[in-house]
């Protein structure tokens, strides 16, 4: 069995969903198997009003994971002090069970580009990102989880495999990892590699959370399949299979369903969470 010494274990090992305000009432009335919710940090950095009132009500009933999309840990410059202060304020108020961010960059100077942009896996990037993770963990006074990205292209100067790169970041900074198996699938198809091999090479002893989600299908200039991490549809069967493959190695783990665009009615999202519950049942100890 997996050595669990490093594994962050604060979220329930149960299904969670990405919270959308249109589901507020129904989540409270008919949560089904959903035991925890994930929010995007930046949507709750206002000063008050309905978003924070709803979040307060939900946090009394559900464990909450704060998932940042704007910290830009992979940027060439250190995380923005103002943004880090906003994040610290949100976390101090909400006391979430988990905080996670992405192996990506999304700001350039003061600009925010509203997408998770890719990084070359070089020694220089490794040193820089490790420094930024240290700064974040120090500022927040807690351990964070770092999520593997969806890849659409490769940098010619990368010298590290992504799995090794993430494992080394976790080793240097003590951070945990968020394993998005949909991202693994998307990247593997896009880059012509094996999603199962990626999981098998991953530092599973660091994983504190799993994501699943839906993606779109396109093709590149050469007719090769190009999957887009859109979070706009149901999880497809090969990704459910990859979740099973992952859980068989990892054991019970918090698993989140992400659905951010073309958000469906609550019962559809709850049904996705029910499939997560079945997958978790199969590895229950």
């Amino acid at each position, binding site marked *: 069995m997996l050595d669990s010494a490093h594994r962050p274990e604060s979220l329930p090992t149960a299904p969670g969903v990405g919270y959308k305000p249109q589901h507020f009432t129904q989540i409270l009335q008919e949560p089904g198997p959903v035991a925890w919710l994930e929010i995007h940090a930046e949507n709750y950095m*206002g000063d008050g009003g309905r978003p924070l009132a709803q979040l307060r009500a939900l946090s009394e009933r559900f464990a909450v994971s704060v998932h940042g999309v704007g910290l830009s840990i992979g*940027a060439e410059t250190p995380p923005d002090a103002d943004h880090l202060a906003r994040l610290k304020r949100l976390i101090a108020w909400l006391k979430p069970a988990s905080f996670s961010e992405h192996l990506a960059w999304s700001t350039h100077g*003061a600009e*925010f580009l509203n997408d998770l942009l890719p990084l070359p896996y070089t020694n220089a990037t490794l040193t820089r990102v490790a420094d930024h993770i240290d700064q974040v963990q120090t500022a927040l006074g807690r351990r964070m989880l770092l999520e593997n990205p969806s890849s659409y*292209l*490769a940098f010619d100067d990368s010298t590290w495999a992504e799995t090794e790169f993430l494992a080394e970041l976790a080793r240097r900074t003590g951070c945990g990892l968020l394993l998005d198996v949909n991202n693994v699938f998307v990247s593997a198809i*896009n880059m012509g590699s094996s999603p199962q091999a990626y999981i098998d090479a991953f530092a599973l002893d660091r994983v504190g959370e799993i994501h699943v989600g839906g993606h779109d299908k396109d093709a590149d*200039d050469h007719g090769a399949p190009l999957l887009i991490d859109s979070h706009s549809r149901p999880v497809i069967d090969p990704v459910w299979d990859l979740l099973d493959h992952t859980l068989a190695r990892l054991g019970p783990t918090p698993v989140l369903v992400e659905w951010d665009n073309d958000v469906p009615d609550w019962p559809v999202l709850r049904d996705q969470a029910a499939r997560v519950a079945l997958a978790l049942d199969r590895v229950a100890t």
Partner: protein
Amino acid sequence: MTVSQAVFRAALLDPDRPIPAGLSDGDGQPAAARFNVYRNNVAVSLIEALRTGFPILTKLLGQQNMDGLSRQYLRANPPSSPLMMHYGQRLPDYLGSLPQLAHLGYLPDVARLELALRRSYHAADSTPISPTRLAVLDPDALMAATVTLAPAVGLLRSDWPLYDIWRFNTQEDAPKPAHVAQDVLITRPEFDPSPHALPSGGAAWIQALLGGQTLAAALHAAQTEAADFDPTETLTLMLSGNAMISLTQEV
């Protein structure tokens, strides 16, 4: 030699620029369509954010025009912080700068109203004073007092029938906007910001109160603009909208 983020960012926001060198499909082949995934993610997400953030503007322009305009706007005006709730601060001035929209002179103020409604929605919560707090004061004491307004209060002065335009585009059976200038007060009784048309002098009165002036000084400012200004109507709007959160008496 790695692709700098400055080079990546420049190509990201400008589809006429070439794809940065040093990127490939993982099999040594060029990756134009792959780079375009990022270009598309950025443009589409920002266009959607503007469409969601400016629903009346989108209705007035039509979605296709709004999206086209947003696509131009975002290249020169990407968000200046990760707080997308505030995106579009420069859109009113941008609209005002476009010669092809010069005949729709009210559009910048409509955009300002939509920004103010969003700002109010996310503003800090506060506890209103009870109307009896005012009623118990004798008139002289009341006129010498200052008030603090709720963070969710907003005020817009417009040369256009701004309130009527808002109402015509958000409520069924609302009358067509008349050709009048309208100042608008935004209150947030609980969680939903609510615009109100102000009588002549009302905006000057509120502006003075926001500036920390006494009720007497505010009345003077309002009556300088509108000699017959009576604060009763505006005060009632403020109290029913939970817009006053404290009252300080001169000692």
